[in-house]
C-alpha cells in the first residue's frame, strides 16, 4: 500500500508559550480525530510531528492515523527552523519508501510548517538540504505579526499567514490542514495523482491570508 506521509513542523519556541502552544496541541488533536473519520485518510495518511525551538526533535515518527497518539508539547527557547528543515529531510530519507521494480513506493510527502517568529539559526543550510527532497507540496504558515513571510517564501511558494496567533486562528489553520490532507488522500487513491500546489487544495478560510 502506498502511504501518504505528512510532516508537521511546529514552532515550540518560547514566544509560543500559553495560548498559542495550547491551540497548536488542540489543533493537532482535533485534526487527527477528524481525519480518522475519513475512510481514505485513515488508510493512507501517516503523520509525523517535528518540533523546533532551541533544537529540532521528531516527537512522533511517521505513524498511521489509527495508532497515532499526540504527545505533550511545551514552549521554550529559540527558533531553530533550519535545524527542523534539515531534520525533516533526514526523516524523509529514512521513512518514505522509494519506488523500485520490487516495491511500490509511498506518495510524495506533504509538509506543513507553522512558526510565529524569525529563525534564530543559520536556516539557509537546512533549507538547502530540504530542497533536495521531493515533496508533493510544502505549506508554511506565519502565525502572528512577528513571523517573517519573506523567509517562509524562500522555503516554499505556498505561504499563508494568520493576523494573530490566537487559539481561534490557529484552530482555523488546522481545520484547513485537515481538509487539505483529506482532499490529497482522496485524490491519490481515486485518481492516482498527487497534488502539486495550493491551487488544488480546498480554499483557505478567511482567517488565512495567502501570501503572494
Amino acid at each position: 500500500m502506498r502511504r501518504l506521509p505528512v510532516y508537521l513542523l511546529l514552532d515550540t519556541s518560547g514566544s509560543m508559550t500559553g495560548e498559542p502552544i495550547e491551540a497548536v496541541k488542540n489543533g493537532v488533536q482535533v485534526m487527527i480525530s477528524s481525519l480518522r473519520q475519513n475512510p481514505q485518510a485513515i488508510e493512507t495518511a501517516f503523520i509525523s510531528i517535528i518540533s523546533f525551538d532551541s533544537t529540532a526533535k521528531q516527537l512522533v515518527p511517521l505513524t498511521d492515523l489509527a495508532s497515532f497518539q499526540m504527545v505533550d508539547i511545551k514552549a521554550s527557547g529559540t527558533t531553530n527552523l533550519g535545524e527542523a528543515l534539515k531534520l525533516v529531510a533526514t526523516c524523509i530519507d529514512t521513512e518514505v519508501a522509494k519506488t523500485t521494480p520490487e516495491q511500490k513506493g509511498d506518495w510524495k510527502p506533504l509538509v506543513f510548517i507553522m512558526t510565529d517568529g524569525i529563525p534564530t539559526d543559520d536556516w539557509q543550510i537546512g533549507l538547502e538540504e530540504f530542497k533536495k527532497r521531493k515533496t508533493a507540496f510544502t505549506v508554511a504558515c506565519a502565525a502572528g505579526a512577528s513571523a517573517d513571510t519573506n523567509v517562509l517564501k524562500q522555503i516554499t511558494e505556498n505561504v499563508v499567514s494568520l493576523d494573530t496567533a490566537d487559539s481561534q486562528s490557529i484552530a482555523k489553520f488546522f481545520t484547513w490542514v485537515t481538509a487539505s490532507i483529506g482532499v490529497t488522500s482522496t485524490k491519490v487513491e481515486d485518481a492516482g495523482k498527487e497534488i502539486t500546489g495550493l491551487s488544488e487544495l480546498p480554499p483557505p478560510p478567511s482567517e488565512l491570508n495567502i501570501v503572494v
Partner: protein
Amino acid sequence: MDDDQQILRNLFAGNNISVPKNRAALLEEFLKEEQNIKAINAVVENQNLLINNWKMDNRITDIIQQPVRILNATVGKPYETKFDFDKFKWKDIAAFQFEGLDEVGLHHDEKTKQLTGVPTQSGDFKIVFKFKLAGEPEDAAFHEKLIPLIINPDPKSLWKNLESDKNDPYWKEDNVTQFAPLGDRHILVSSKRGRAHANVGSFREDDFAYRDLDDGWSLVVVADGAGSAKISRKGSALACNSVVQYFTENSSKESLAEFDVLLQQHKNNSGDDTQKKLNNYVYNKLGKAALYVHKQLAEFATKAEVPLKDLNSTLIFTLFKKYDIGYAFLSFGVGDCPIAILNKGVTEVTLMNWIDVGEFGGGTRFITMPEIFQNEKFATRFGFKLIDDFSYLIMMSDGIYDPKFVVEANLPNIKKWKEFLADLGGKNEDGVKVELHPENKDIVNQFSTWMDFWSPGNHDDRTLAIVL
C-alpha cells in the same frame, strides 16, 4: 524518655521558650507526670498521622498525574494491551475498579494483566481508573485517574455505498458478474465499482465485453476508464463495444480466415518467414481494430462536443481459437492492464503484453491518445502466442492488479500466479472461495463475493476476466 525530652524542647524552642540549666530538674519532673506523657504521645501520634497523610496525598497525586498511554483500539478488532501495575510501579494499590470500559466493549483481565475485548464504539474516551492505596481506611472513597483511550472506527464502516444516478446518459450498472460459455471454454468475468466511487455515488469506470466470433475465434475485452477523465465510463464502454463491433463486421471476418492459412503454413515449415508473416498479420489486423476503436471514440467526442481526453480509457483485448496444434492467442494492449495465460498444470505464465506504468502514479497511456499510434513502441503492443493447452486466460484492470500483484516485477513470476489462484480458491483473510470449474452452479455468487475483498488503500474499480 530522652526522645520525649527532645520533642518537648523542640516544641518550646519553636515557641521561644528556653529551659535554663537550673530548670532541668523541673523539666524531668514535668516529663514524669502522667498527663504530660499522654499529651506527648498524642503529639507524636498526630505528627505521624500528618506525615503519613501528606505522603499518601502526594502518592495519590503522583499516580493521578503519571502519564499512562495505552494502545489505540479499533471497533470490531480484538484488542489486548498490557495494563501491568508492576510496570507502572503501582505495587501500593490495594483496591481498584474501572469505569467506562464495559461501555466500549473492553474489560480488565487481572490474570493476564491486560485490557482486552472487542471495542464496540469509536471515539476519544477517558477511562476512569478508581483506586485506593494500601494503608487507607477501608471505607475511604476511591481516587480517580483518567486514562485516555482512542477507539478508531472500523475503516470498512466509513465507506458509504451510494447508488449511482440511473438517469445519467452514460450510466452503467455498478456491479456486474457473469459466467458463460466462450468458444470451447467458459468465461467468468466480474466488473465492480470501487469503494472510492461508491462512497460518493459516482460511476463504475471499468468495462468489459466478450463474444464468440463466427469462425471459431473468441474475443475478450477489458477497459479501464481514467479516474481523472469526466466521462471515462462512456469511454471504456465504447472502447469495449467498438472492439466487438470491429470483429463482427464482415470484412474483418474474412481476413481472420486468412490466419488459418498462415498458421497452416507455419505448421508445415516452422521457419522464420512464416513466424514473421503471422506477426505481421497480427500487427495489421489488430492494429486496424485499435485504430478503429480510437476513431469511434474521437467521433463520439466530436458529436458530444467534449474533448477526446474526457473519454480516456485503457484497453486490452485477446482473441483465441483452438486449432489441432493448440490454442492461438492474439492480443493488443494499451494501459496498465495485464493479460496472462497460465499453461496446463500452471507451471508457466505467458504475459501477452507489457504494461504502461508511468514513472509517477497515473502515468499510463490510453486508447484515446493519438500519439500511441505514431510511437515506435506501437508494434510491441501486439502479442501472438501458440500454446498447446491452457488452464486459464486471465485479464484484469489495475483495481485487481494493484492489490494482488502490486508491482510489474511480480507478473512474470509463476509463484505469484499460483498465490493468486490459491487466493481465489479461498486462501484469503475472509476465507471466500471460488470453485473455478464450469460445473459449479454457484460460481457467479462465489466470484462476486470474492471480488469484494478488502484491501486497505485499494478501492479502485475492479475488473477480472478468467477464461477457464
